[in-house]
Each structure stands twice: as C-alpha cells, then as structure tokens.
C-alpha cells in the first residue's frame, strides 16, 4: 500500500522517536491505551474504532426516516450502492444492522445518509424511527457490498425495486448520470413511497424513466410481467432489491430467459427454514451454555447469553460471523441441511444462519 510504503521510507530517527513516544504513551496509560482517554473528547478521531455522530434525523414518509451521520476520520468512503453496518444501542444493548448508503460519495466531507423503514416489531428500525436523536454516537463499519455499478456505466440499466429496497438504488441514482435508466418501483401507496418527489424531479430532468406501482391497489408487479412495462428489459443490466418473493421471482425469470448474468440482486433479509428441535449450545472459550431454539441463529443465542460474537451482515453473505463448530450438529437455516462436526474435525459455520440441532460446541 502506498501509505505504508511512504511511512517506511521516513528517516529512521524520526520513526524511532515516534515509536518510542507511542510506547511511552502506552506505558503511562497501561492497562488501558492512550485511545481510551482520547475517546473522552475525540470519539471520531483518526485511529479510533470507526464511529459516527448523528447530525440529523428527517422523516421521509410515515414509516421511513433518513439519518445523516458524520463519520469518523477513519471513514474510507463508499461506492454508490454499498451498505454499512451500524451498531446502535437500543435499551442499552448494542445491536448491529446493515443499511444502504443513500447519499452520493463526496470527496471531502464525511457526511453520509441512510434511509430506514420500520419493520413491524423491528427492534432497530423502530428505534431509529422513533428514538434516535441528533448527537447520538453510533458504531460503524466501513462500507462494503458488491451491489455497485461497473466502470464505465452500462449503456442501459433497469432497476427493479420494492419498499425499502429502493435505498441502494437511490444512492446510485444520486451519484451517477446514467445514459438510459429505468426504475420500476413498487410501494404500498404514493404517500408511503420514499423519495417520490426527488424521483419525479429526476424524471423531469430527463435523467430517469420511472414506472411506479402502488401495491395497495394493484398488487406487486410479478417479475414475469416486467416486459409489459419495460419491453427491452432483456438488453438491460438489471439491479434488483426488495422483498424475497420479488427477488426469487426475478432470479427465476432472468434465468429462464438465459440472461442470469445481467441480473444483480441485493437481499436485505433471508427466509429461514425452521424444522426439528433446538439444543444446548456450548460456547467453549467463554464457557457459556445456553439453549438455542430450532429457529434461532446461534449468533443471536450467543449474544443473548453474553458471549461476544463476531458478526457482519447477519444474513449469511459476508462470512463475518464464521466460527469453528467443534462438536455436535447445527442446522443451516437457509436450507435445513444438518452440519456435523466430529471430535477430530471442526467445521467452520456461519453462526448467523445456523441453529443448534441437538447439542453443539462452538469455539468462541
């Protein structure tokens, strides 16, 4: 990396001084680190764990809200369409969720925005909608995700979205001027459609062709009928994001047309298979035993029992939660398949999509 190379070429004396200053700082703050004291005043400084401060919370519709966040100095920017993980303290408990970035990347400022739609009984989304106030510190991760545009932009694009699935696409539309872009979006009613005014402005500017579908009246547009509203859909590179049935449907339709490679899908949620019984989960390194329900990801079970579990997307795509299963069996919640470890062979499992199937031991 250029950055490291540059550092290494500095004069040795300077480096020695800096390194000794650092170890002295560590020594005088032991058992903590200098950062623990700097966090008192400068939580967003470079070198700190990535955090962000809420600067504005603005309702978008009755059940969606846009949050603007000033990211810490360590923020490395994002590509339109990517998402980031946010750690929010809800009732004092830190919960991590992923949200697509809806603001365009800018060179100098560290402001980003996300738009969150409340899900019935959703813990974090409802907290963000109703309780989050400007000034709150959030934990962040760097932006990630492959739901992005190639360089150069495709000549023709189609966006197929529904509900909050519009968010990553909004990030792209705000960032790029597409030569030819069509958006087919489903929302319950005109009032509950987020970004409606802005999209209509883009249409007026000639940047976008918009097909709106209001599902309270007309039902969700089946992917198979996309040809009726976008006749040249086969020629377009398509980005789709929305509820699972819509995406499953689209994948099948595009595959049948032999153009599966032109469809790019982003899922916000996995549908889980629930069968059989749970069992006792033993987190061996923390020495915590807890009961895991058949439908309960081990990630949740472990967190509820106080284990510090590594995690990422919480839906089986990022592998941020992988841990060795050293004994017993777990069920893959996406497929229902049983995965078993033997005493001499540990298996790596994704705890966010695995549930206890009988007793199991995880090396965490």
């Amino acid at each position, binding site marked *: 990396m250029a950055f490291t190379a540059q550092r290494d070429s500095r004069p040795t004396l300077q480096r020695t001084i800096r390194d000794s200053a650092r170890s002295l700082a560590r020594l*005088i703050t032991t058992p903590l680190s200098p950062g623990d004291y700097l966090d*008192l005043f400068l939580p967003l400084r470079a070198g700190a764990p990535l955090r962000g401060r809420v600067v504005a919370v603005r309702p978008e519709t009755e059940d969606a809200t846009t949050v603007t966040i000033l990211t810490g100095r360590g923020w490395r920017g994002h590509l339109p369409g990517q998402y980031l993980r946010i750690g929010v*303290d809800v009732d004092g*408990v830190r919960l991590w969720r992923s949200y697509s970035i809806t603001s365009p990347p800018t060179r100098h400022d560290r402001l980003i925005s996300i738009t969150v739609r409340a899900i019935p009984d959703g813990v974090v989304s409802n907290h963000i909608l109703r309780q989050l106030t400007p000034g709150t510190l959030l934990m962040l991760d760097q932006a990630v995700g492959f739901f992005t545009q190639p360089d150069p932009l495709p000549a023709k694009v189609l966006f197929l979205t529904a509900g909050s699935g519009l968010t990553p696409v909004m990030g792209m539309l705000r960032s790029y001027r597409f030569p030819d872009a069509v958006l087919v979006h489903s929302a319950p009613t005109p009032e509950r459609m987020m970004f409606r005014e802005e999209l209509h402005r883009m249409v007026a500017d000639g940047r976008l062709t918009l097909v709106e579908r209001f599902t309270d009246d007309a039902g969700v547009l089946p992917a198979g009928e996309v040809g009726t509203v976008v006749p040249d859909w086969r020629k377009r590179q398509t980005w789709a994001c929305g509820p699972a049935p819509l995406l499953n449907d689209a994948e099948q339709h595009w595959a049948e047309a032999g153009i599966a490679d032109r469809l790019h899908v982003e899922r916000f949620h996995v549908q889980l298979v629930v069968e059989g019984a749970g069992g006792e989960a033993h987190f061996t390194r923390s*020495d915590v035993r807890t009961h895991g329900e058949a439908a309960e990801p081990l990630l949740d079970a472990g967190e509820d029992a106080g284990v510090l579990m590594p995690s990422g997307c919480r839906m089986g795509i990022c592998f941020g939660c992988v841990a060795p299963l050293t004994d017993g069996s777990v069920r893959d919640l996406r497929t229902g398949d049983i995965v078993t470890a033997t005493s001499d062979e540990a298996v790596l499992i994704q705890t966010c999509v695995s549930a206890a199937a009988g007793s199991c031991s995880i090396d965490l």
Partner: protein
Amino acid sequence: MALPNTLTSSLARLRPARGGHRLSTTRPKAPAPTYASGKPNPLAHLSPDQIERIGAELDEIRQEVLDSRGERDANYIRRLIRVQRSLELVSRTVLLFSKYWPAWVVGTTGLSLSKILENMEIGHNVLHGQWDWMRDPKVHSTSWQWDMASPSAQWQQAHNVQHHTFTNVLGKDEDLGFNILRVDPAQKWEPGNLVQPLTNLLNAVFFQYGVAIHDLGTPALKRGERDRATYLADLRTMLKKAGRHAFRDYVAHPAVSGPSAVPTLLANATANLVRNLWAHTVIFCGHLPSGVETFEVEAIDDETRGEWYVRQMLGSGNISGGPMMHLMTGNLSYQIEHHLFPDLPSNRYAEVAPRVQALMERYGLRYVSGPLYKQAASAWGKVFRYSLPNRGQRRATLRRLARRVLPRVRVPESRMLPA
C-alpha cells in the same frame, strides 16, 4: 425441575472450577440440625419447602431486574467510566506540578479516588460480567483489564469461581480471611496464627500484590490440582503485568514529571496505598464480621439453588451508609445482594436490598449490616481473637505442639514412672 435459564447461564459463565461444584436440581433435603462436626447448621430451622420458596422469590427479584435492565443502567456505567477516566487524567496532570504541595494534595486525592472507583465500582463489577449484556466489547468481562496487579482472567477464576461458588465454606473458600487467617473456631490453629494481626496488616498495605499472589492458586498447585506449566505461565503473566504497572507509577510518570519526579512517585505510592487499604477494608467486611455464618463442606453436597441462595445470604454482611459509601465500595456494601446476584448491575443492588432484607427477616435469617467502622472492628476482633487457640483447648494445643516440636526427645527408660 429445570433451573431457570438465567441462573444456569450465569453460573455457567463462571469458568470451570478447580474442583468443580454443580448445583443439584433435586428438591432440597431437610436440613440436619448440626454438621457432623457438631457445629450447628444455620439452615436448620427451615423446611425444604421454605428453602425452595426462598429460591423462587429470589429468582423473581432477579428476573424483574433483568427485565427492566436498559438504557438508564448503560448510561450509568458509561458515565461512571467517563468520570473516572477524566478524574484520573486531571489528577495525573496536576501531579506533573506536585513539587508545589497544593498540587500534590489535590492530585493525590484525585488519583486515590480514581483508583478506588476504577477497582471497585467499575473493574470488579465489569469483571463479574455485570455489563456484558450491553454487548459493548469495550465494557465486557472478557476484554476488561483493570489497574490491579492480578490479571483479569486469573482474578476471575479465583474470585468469581472459587470464592463466589464456595462462599464461606471452610476449607473450600480460599478468599481473604479463610486463606491466610484463622477467623473461625472450626479452623485449626497453627503457631503462625499468633502473628496474624501483623500478616493481615501487611496484606492490607500490599493488597494488590496479595490478591495477585492469592489468585495464582499456589495451594492448588501443591495439592496437585493445578498443572505446573499453566501455573508458571500464569505467574509470568502476572509478574509482567505487575511490573508494567509498577513501572508506570514509579518510573514513567515520575520521569515525565521532571522536576516533580519524587513528589509524583510519592503521590502514586500514596494513591496505591490508599486504594489498597480501602479495598482490603471493604472486602474484609464482606464475610468476616460477627453474625456472618460459615459452613462445612457437607453444606455443598448436592446443594440446590435454594440452599445456594441461603448460604450466600448468610455468608455475607453489608455495610450501611449513604450513596457515596455505596459508590466507593463498588456497591460491595451490598455484599449480600452481590452474592445472591453477582452478575446483576451493581447500581441495582440498592433497590433490591429492602426486598432481600424483608425476605430474610420473614424466614428468620439474620440480615447482617452495620456501619463500616463497626464491621471492620468486628472483623479485626476475630483476627485477634482467633490468633490464639480456642479457649478451653489451649492446654491441649500446647501439648500437641510440644509433641510436634520435641518428638525425638526420648525419655530414658529408667526414668519412666511405673505405669
């Protein structure tokens, strides 16, 4: 009957005990009036049903706190950590000018208070896992390091596992008191006990090192219950940590203070001493003042949840006082509540205390509590009293000793009196 999930998991969180102890899930048996040794059983007046009801009531209290745990509590510990770190930062900065005596006084006072807060209300309680539910990796029992010579993990093993499981069981609980002191008539007297008031004073002065040495578990090594290699590894970790801390307080900070080097060194030594004496006193009052019961090993045979709760209540004593007293003792002034619910957030002990007290009184159990000076005096009284053999056995003990010291002195046969 299954144990409530919360309790099993809180006990399971404790790492595997050296010489483990598992709660029994069967109904409690009727308590025997006395132990085999003849010592009265403090549970004797309770029926198995009552013991079980006590357990259920305490579980209910616990559950209520768990259900209402939330933002208010999280804010409490975060604010406290911020206050403590700011206080430390300010005090250490003031000490840079400690060659001026007012700066010395202010800095030393601030640093002492900061060290006490850090050890007691923050460190001790975080290491108990009281704040693990926040899922904040920076305030978690598995990642926290405190300003004590004993490394967190070693202390957790010795304290959370050994002491909290075997509270006041003679011969099992190796916590302060029962380990190096004779504080109960049922403990065997040794000549070394004669100097135990002095030993105890030394332990108070060098408390953080006393704790670190205790946490190594040397007796367990001698009994063959600890593996030599892990013992040595623990010893190395501890010495490294203790060394770093000593270097920080007695070399690095004085060096940074330049012309105030010596006053800074003295200030740091004083703050450590104050913290040591305070922590020792508070902990000393937890299980030793009069009225607190001790138990024999039989008590934990097949012990049920209810019996475990009753033993924790009877084996602990509180310190009365105002909010400042509770804060500075790390809420160990609520030792009884802490021993019942070691992983509930410490800021909640105050609100459950009246209910615990009412429950104990209802079941004819003594809720031991008193002001600090009284509890400390009572505990010190025991240290002095039991430094001598039990009254009535002194002559026999002397004879036993004499026989041990002079076993080989043969009396010539001709001098022996005829039988």
